[in-house]
């Protein structure tokens, strides 16, 4: 019997005074999917970056098939067969190049593919794309693609590599169920071929579907290993949190008066018109596949792009915002998806990111009142449970989940009439997700809240009412109590199958 493909012993890594990896011991066997769980900031991505040659370890050893492995650059790791799909999707694609070049980027980099003939390049790229069932115009630039397609491009490229070790850092974070299923089928195939897989995710449904073994990580050390079937996922969560997961049971309160009502809304050409109301003290979740139009709905509510037809009223008076400025003025707040692109100001610290939309509130005339801003920042850091040394830390020093808390918390620092949260849990660990959910529900009394999520699990954790979106229209409505899951799933996918037929 051969040993594990990868053997990690006492791996350590610090950023300045911040000890991130404090002695990781971990084996990754061939032909098995090892799922790595850990709270936000536990050090998962850092471990990945050491393995793929972005960071070098401060101490410890890694062996790959018995030989020492310490890649000095991503190129070396790739050559050794360690292939990575990174958490930050935009680290995976080059927006100005076409899809074909993106699919073959690492082969172009190592010289195994030339680019002189565009046709030959596309031919090869087509093969790579088809392996993951990616159907895209290979000649168009990636810049215009939605996030899901970008992620698939990055995954397809990794899959084409015949890897020894494939690392997937939250690969499904913006995929819908159908695409995720296709990814899982691919993972199954690679597992059968004897590839070692390291899979990082916060989604329990993913984990249940593909895990052969689970490793829990906490504060930079491995805190649990679960290999016996059936896998003890509850134990794994406990090990990663160091305590039990708090409960997410929902008790549905009585809805207040209607705040938002939409009638005859058409979001795009040839979509069916739909109506929607949201009341005070109510949390409405809208779920649906990626690309089903959830963000388009958010865009209409927030004044980014007006719906093609239909009327909206807010608190009984007509509502047709021409810009986010107007929307905010009317008390409609949107926390957008894709925090790096749409929410976070990289040069700003936590406090400044938090105060960005409501600076006027923290100013005297034009002048910023520092004390008021700091007080608000301290309050929100506490309320949202942002893990940081101080609100004056740079935003990029936070782990992904904590960045997300800041991006959402920004819009919770002031009272709103309607709060729209687009994928508020992206990259957030399970406990933090519950915390954010609880916080949203606890403050929902005087406003209407609309949460847009692709994951049904997430909808069920937060909503009073769950609406299903498909084909840029509403396809179903459910009270979040004794939910008929199969009916929801049918509505979610029906439209897509209809379109595919």
């Amino acid at each position: 019997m051969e040993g594990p493909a990868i053997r990690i012993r006492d791996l350590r890594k610090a950023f300045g005074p911040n000890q991130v990896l404090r002695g990781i011991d971990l084996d990754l066997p061939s032909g098995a999917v090892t799922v790595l769980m850990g709270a936000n900031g536990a050090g998962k991505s850092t471990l990945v970056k050491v393995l793929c040659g972005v960071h070098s370890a401060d101490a410890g050893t890694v062996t790959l098939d018995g030989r020492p492995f310490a890649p000095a650059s991503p190129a070396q790791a790739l050559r050794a067969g360690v292939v990575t799909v990174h958490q930050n999707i935009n680290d995976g694609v080059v927006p100005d190049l076409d899809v074909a070049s993106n699919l073959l980027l690492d082969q172009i980099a190592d010289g195994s593919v030339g680019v002189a003939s565009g046709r030959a390049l596309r031919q090869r790229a087509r093969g790579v794309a088809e392996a993951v069932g990616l159907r895209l115009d290979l000649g168009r630039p990636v810049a215009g693609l939605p996030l899901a397609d970008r992620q698939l491009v990055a995954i397809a490229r990794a899959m084409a590599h015949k890897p020894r070790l494939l690392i997937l850092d939250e690969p499904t974070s913006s995929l819908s169920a159908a695409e995720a299923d296709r990814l899982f089928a691919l993972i199954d195939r690679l597992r059968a071929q004897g590839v070692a897989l390291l899979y990082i995710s916060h989604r329990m449904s993913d984990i249940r579907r593909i895990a052969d073994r689970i490793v829990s990580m906490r504060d930079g050390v491995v805190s649990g290993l679960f290999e016996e079937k059936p896998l003890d996922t509850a134990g794994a969560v406990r090990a990663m949190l160091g305590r039990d997961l708090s409960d997410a049971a929902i008790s549905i309160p009585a809805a207040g008066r209607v705040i938002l009502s939409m009638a005859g809304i058409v979001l795009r050409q040839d979509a069916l018109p739909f109506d929607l109301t949201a009341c005070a003290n109510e949390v409405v979740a809208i779920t649906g596949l990626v690309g089903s139009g959830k963000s388009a709905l958010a865009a209409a509510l927030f004044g980014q792009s007006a719906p093609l037809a239909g009327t909206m009223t807010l608190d009984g008076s007509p509502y047709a915002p021409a810009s986010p400025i107007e929307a905010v003025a009317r008390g409609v707040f949107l926390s957008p998806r894709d925090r790096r692109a749409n929410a976070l100001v990289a040069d700003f610290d936590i406090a400044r990111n938090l105060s960005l939309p409501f600076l006027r509130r923290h100013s005297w005339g034009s002048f910023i009142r520092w004390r008021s801003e700091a007080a608000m920042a301290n309050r929100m850091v506490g309320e949202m449970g942002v893990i940081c040394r101080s609100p004056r830390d740079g935003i990029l020093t936070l782990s992904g989940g904590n960045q997300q808390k800041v991006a959402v918390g920004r819009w919770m620092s002031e009272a709103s009439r309607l709060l729209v949260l687009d994928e508020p849990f992206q990259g957030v660990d399970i406990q933090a997700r519950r915390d954010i959910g609880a916080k949203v529900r606890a403050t929902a009394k005087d406003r209407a809240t609309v949460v847009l999520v692709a994951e049904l699990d997430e909808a069920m954790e937060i909503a009073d009412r769950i609406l299903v979106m498909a084909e840029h229209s509403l396809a179903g409505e459910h009270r979040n109590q004794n939910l008929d899951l199969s009916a929801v799933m049918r509505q979610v996918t029906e439209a897509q199958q209809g379109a595919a037929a």
Partner: protein
Amino acid sequence: MSVRDLAIRYGFILLMLGLVAFFGLAASGFLTLPSAIFILQSVAITGILALGVTCTLVVGGFDLSIGAVATSALMLSAYVMVVWEMSALAAVVLCLLMGAAVGMINGFLIVKMKVPDLLATLGMMFVLLGVQRIPTEGNSIATGMALPDGTNATGVFSPAFLALGRLRLWNVLPLSVVFLLVIAVLVWGFLELTRHGRLMYAIGSNAQAAALAGTNVERYKVAAYVISGVLASVGGILLAARLGRGDVASGNNLLLDSVAAALIGYAVLGASKPNAFGTAIGALFVGILLQGLTMLNAPYYTQDFVKGAVLVVALVFTFALTGQQIRRA
């Protein structure tokens, strides 16, 4: 703070103090009040322009037209007083309006027409270089100059206007230095203390995020170019007041020197981003260097060399130490 942090924060300031100490020892008369005032005065105009550039850098833009705006203001003010025989006030007001208009057009091209900033302001630069010479067919403007209609211009630079460039408060402090200091404090306060400045920094770092936080990104960007245009025209007015003549050849080096000052500002106090205080220090730094070298009788080309070398060394020092890739200037 570690030594390294201290070096990042104060390295540049220390370098500047070292320079002052060196010149103080090497060149008699360097460490005197007149010399200090002289340095300030020599950097007043570039400094004011550099503060304008800083505002455009803050919103992630860049303004190549400032040198041309300054020389246009120089020519315009001379034309208004000498040919149209209008008052100093009219000259100042028209120049400021011209600067604001150029800034608006730059902003319009960049924001509405989506022309990349370098490109839009480069085009504007060429346009202004041409336009400012058309009314006089390329000649300088001075009292008595021949006009195209055959008569001679009889207007004069009014004493009030000349005072802008020449008056010294308490017989010591030139008015242009006062302008520099006041504008520096205003721009600094605007960028650091007001929410408008904060939003401009947000736009420069992530315009999309700023827009989704309810900021009127387009208006702020245009405002930055208007500030830049107005400050450049202030620089041009001061230049005209100092020269007392609409001289077409003046102002050649204004663009490069003020860009240099604004960029050096990145290195001051470890800011790694455009900032008004850094820009002022950057301008001062160049002024000290040139003054010191002049007093040491260094020929003009060694001044370029030393300016470049000290700049590179200082910046390597700062940026290599902070170890971070800053966002593109």
